[in-house]
């Protein structure tokens, strides 16, 4: 059970201090989640904290590889049909 940060991450540091398992760490080219430590905040918080503050749609995936914050869910910017 682990979330994953992908390349659209902008390295804004918002998630890192929130992680109750200290699973998030600074890396190049972007922050990463240690899958052995990540608990998806189970037992600590109702919502996974990294996904609850991440400003970039699609940058954090769940264990099935599905975006926690799908396109259009945060900014309301209309989705382009292409």
């Amino acid at each position, binding site marked *: 059970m682990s979330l994953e940060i992908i390349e659209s991450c902008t390295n804004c540091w918002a998630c890192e201090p929130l992680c109750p398992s200290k699973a998030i760490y600074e890396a190049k080219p972007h922050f990463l989640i240690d899958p052995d430590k990540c608990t998806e905040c189970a037992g600590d918080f109702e919502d996974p904290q990294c996904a609850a503050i991440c*400003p970039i749609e699609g940058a954090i995936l769940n264990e099935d590889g599905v975006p926690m914050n799908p396109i259009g869910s945060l900014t309301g910017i209309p989705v382009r049909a292409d």
Partner: protein
Amino acid sequence: MQLPVINNAASEAPKGGCSAGSCGSTDDQMNHLPEHIREKVFNHPCYSEEAHHYFARMHVAVAPACNIQCNYCNRKYDCANESRPGVVSELHHPVQAVKKVLAVAATIPQMTVLGIAGPGDPLANPERTFETFRMLSEQAPDIKLCVSTNGLSLPDNVEELAKYNIDHVTITINCVDPDVGAQIYPWIFWKNKRIKGREAAEILIAQQQKGLEMLVAKGILVKVNSVLIPGVNDKHLEEVSKIVKAKGAFLHNVMPLISEAEHGTYYGLTGQRGPTNEELQALQDACEGDMNMMRHCRQCRADAVGLLGEDRGSEFTMDKVEQMEINYPEAMKMRAEVHAAINEELESKRLAKETKVQLVSIQGLKPKEVTRPVLMAVATKGNGVINEHFGHASEFLIYEASSEGMRFIGHRKTKPYCEGGDTCGDGESALDTTLRVLAGCEVVLCSKVGYEPWGPLEAAGIQPNGEHAMEPIEDAVLKVYEEMRAAGKLDKPVNLQLKVA
């Protein structure tokens, strides 16, 4: 260093005539402030219109995280409110940031103020922000520290802010009505949850207002920034201005929305336009009756360095800073001398102005006839004098002269008509831009103006004037206005629509 108290006789100046109102340049606005506030802001370029001609500021980008989303911001870049969008700042750890501040302060002694404004929200990064402040308050006690925030975490941080002698805080308040807020803020991160819509705006507004009250109670100066978004909060900002003034904010800065589509913001991509120069000025004028309005804001980047309107950040990239050897105690002595010289100049200017005011009241001059106001554009590189070529100016300061005196209206950016050398090929379209941004002005004052732009300027109703090079802006503007009066140019009602709007 004990800063000299400037113009402590101001309150005794005669209340009639010029001293009570809008006469003289807008630095008179400062005279209305209580002495203890004026002492704090007289050398702060962001808070005092007069100071911004002489003193410089810098920002360090130590705070990347943010706890809210604004519709004028794209988080792939810096905060679009506190920084011009579309560019990413070089992010620093606190130790690097402090090194950079010391290097800049030693190289640019006019630098009096260090701000943390992002690129996210400083108080959403409390460890990095306060670590930077703590080190600077120890190592560079001659630098003023300030911070700019969206306000969400402000109440939790007021105690900590007070610890490091941070006596200036800017809060961005775009609304006091959650229904307006819901159109500006899609979400906030609050108590370990992402909250959306009206509820989010409600919490944010409550936190901002609470933070404002707590800061004022602590005696910390508060400036309020608002982004003017036509059709969303334009009417509403007059109410915002009244409320924040009543709660004790000392300055209100209404900034135009920046919403270029290429910045990829919600507003940019959905066609939300920014205000025109005239709309911005009209709102600032409408708020002015109630509140000190700031009109010289340049919407600096989160890593800006130098005088407002200039950015010397490229001279202080981290690799360059690492090479510099700074002896700060030595630099502090030199800085104190430079500051003393500037203060002396400011004081002599102020005394000269007071003398003039007193002379008028003694002689009891009959009131001047009322003549129509005239907008004039000025090209300057700083120090309060006309010292920039027309073709080199990347912005113009706009002043309004009238029978009441003169006041600062704002600045307008352009592409320099001629960068010199090869880039002159592009000159024609750049001139068109300048003619457009100077619309409404009848005179442009600069240290020099070339033959080529002269004709198009005149044809556009803007008189080029290079006769007042190196003169103080205020003297030159009032002199030119007087010449226009003498020549009968103020009799005809030209350009009045701007005042009506």
